[in-house]
């Protein structure tokens, strides 16, 4: 039976969500006066990164957790969103260089995310016919192609040197330049996190979302129930790519600099690690995964390339011992406790 406690009910979940959002708004404000965090505002950068990776991981979750399709190439979409937004908003590159006109950064992020979604849909046309392991290879190849384009098309992207002075986001006359206030940018990111999570909840609890889950559960039966499997897989890829592309845009306008190195295949592996670590197929898992892995990643900076080794080990342990991720830890513990209780009762 489904558990029917208060926190499982619709009302309870809404209460938790509201409290979480309130805390996410208030706590950084209090930190603003804290001596440790005011010295350099790196704390806010970390929070922004967690928010951005939450959007990425949630997008990946729609594809992997709900539709059951793997992607080891989502850094490719992150790259398209990031470069796309830079090339649409930068005065010396891309659109600005060619025409002299540029788009305001939020609009450029949105359009770049749409481009990522379109590319995702195109990629999904062949991908929708592939099963798990071939799909992994296809998405790895996709990531590689995007990376190579970013690295080698110097006339467009300035190659491996990258592009500096990426314009800051300005909305309704308010500047979200991270050089002046990182806290403001954090609230911008938080706003989009809430929007994207809300949209995700709406999608997965609708007719469309049920179609996606049905594909994960049983493609044959889904087809027999009237779900156009190929179309829904393409849709899932496109939605997922939109999320990740948008996050890529938010990322680059925060950092203010872009170079191809950010979008190597390892980044895709980190995205998957975040999702598996947090737990896929639910709302909370991607948030937890993004937060914990981002913090670990920053904490392990000194290990440089050995970090990938740590991720490998973390991933292995999670898959072996906690396949539901840390979001499923509550279930696992309560399961173990009730098992022990039963054991005691029998003994």
């Amino acid at each position, binding site marked *: *039976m*489904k558990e029917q406690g208060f926190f499982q009910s619709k009302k309870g979940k809404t209460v938790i969500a509201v409290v979480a959002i309130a805390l996410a708004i208030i706590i950084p404000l209090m930190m603003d006066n804290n001596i440790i965090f005011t010295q350099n505002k790196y704390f806010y950068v970390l929070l922004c990164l967690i928010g951005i990776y939450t959007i990425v991981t949630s997008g990946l979750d729609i594809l992997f957790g709900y539709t059951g399709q793997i992607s080891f190439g989502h850094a490719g979409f992150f790259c398209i969103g990031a470069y796309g937004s830079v090339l649409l908003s930068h005065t010396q590159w891309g659109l600005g260089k060619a025409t002299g006109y540029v788009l305001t950064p939020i609009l450029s992020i949105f359009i770049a995310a749409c481009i990522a979604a379109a590319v995702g849909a195109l990629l999904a046309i062949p991908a929708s016919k592939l099963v798990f392991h071939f799909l992994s290879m296809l998405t790895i190849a996709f990531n590689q192609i995007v990376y190579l384009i970013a690295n080698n098309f110097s006339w467009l992207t300035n190659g491996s040197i990258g592009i500096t002075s990426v314009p800051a986001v300005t909305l309704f006359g308010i500047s979200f330049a991270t050089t002046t206030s990182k806290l403001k940018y954090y609230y911008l990111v938080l706003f989009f996190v809430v929007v994207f999570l809300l949209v995700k909840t709406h999608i997965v609890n*609708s*007719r469309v979302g*049920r*179609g996606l889950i049905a594909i994960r559960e049983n493609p044959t*039966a889904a*087809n*027999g129930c*009237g779900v156009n499997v190929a179309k829904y897989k393409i849709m899932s890829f496109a939605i997922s790519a939109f999320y990740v592309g948008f996050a890529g845009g938010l990322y680059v306008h925060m950092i203010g600099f872009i170079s191809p190195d950010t979008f190597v295949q390892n980044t895709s592996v980190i995205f998957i690690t975040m999702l598996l670590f947090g737990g896929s197929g639910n709302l909370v898992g991607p948030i937890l995964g993004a937060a914990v892995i981002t913090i670990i990643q920053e904490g392990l900076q000194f290990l440089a390339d050995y970090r990938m080794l740590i991720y490998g080990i973390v991933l292995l342990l999670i898959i072996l011992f906690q396949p539901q991720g840390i979001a499923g830890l509550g279930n696992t513990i309560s399961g173990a406790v009730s098992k022990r209780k039963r054991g005691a009762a029998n003994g």
Partner: protein
Amino acid sequence: MGEKLLEVKDLTINFSGLKAVDTLNFSIDKGEIFGLIGPNGAGKTTTFNMISGALKPTSGEVWLNGQRIDGNYMYQTNKLGIARTYQNINLFRSMTVLENLLVGQHCRLTCGLAPAILRTPRERKEEAAAVEKAKETLEFCGLHEKIDVYSNSLSYGEQRILEIARALVSDPYLIILDEPAAGMNPTEKNSLADLVQRIRAKGVTVLLVEHDMKFVMGITDRICVLNYGKRIALGTPAEVQANPEVIEAYLGGGD
């Protein structure tokens, strides 16, 4: 009898040289319970797969309500009014009984991505109606007490009934049942027979494959017998049982 609902004309399929179904002809009238029987490997499930759109026939035609449907995909056939169950149970295992029935209505619901994201009043109304419809269907099939149970924790017999409910909830003209009684105990078989009769009484035509002869003979109006992909008999249960070719196919001829 009455109007023809489904017509199968010269249906043939080749699996690399092997004719699994060979120029098969039959038609099903509206409101009929029609059985398809035959020894193992006779091509019954293959025929089902061609009618429902899981397989494309090599040649021949399938017509539903005067519309040609062979070569359609399953999701298209489902929308046109054919719903089916499977020989090996194909449920959405980690979904609840209710959710399975909501997916079952997929082809009858219309809201796409945008209404879902915006939660428009139309979308909410449609979803609420879908839940009501699912509840009615579960009541009809006798599974309403299990509405919030995950489908993988149902008993085997209940899973078979859930598959029928999931097919029925899409309001089909024709429901195709692939070995619905397999693995059921006698009590469950009796209530299944009752359910099939009630489904017909609702106005849904039934096509079924079943190995349990007592079950088939008891509930069908007409039976088509297949052997090696060919039709060897067609008629009422009594006619079919008296047919020497059928007896030979089942018991083996002594030449």
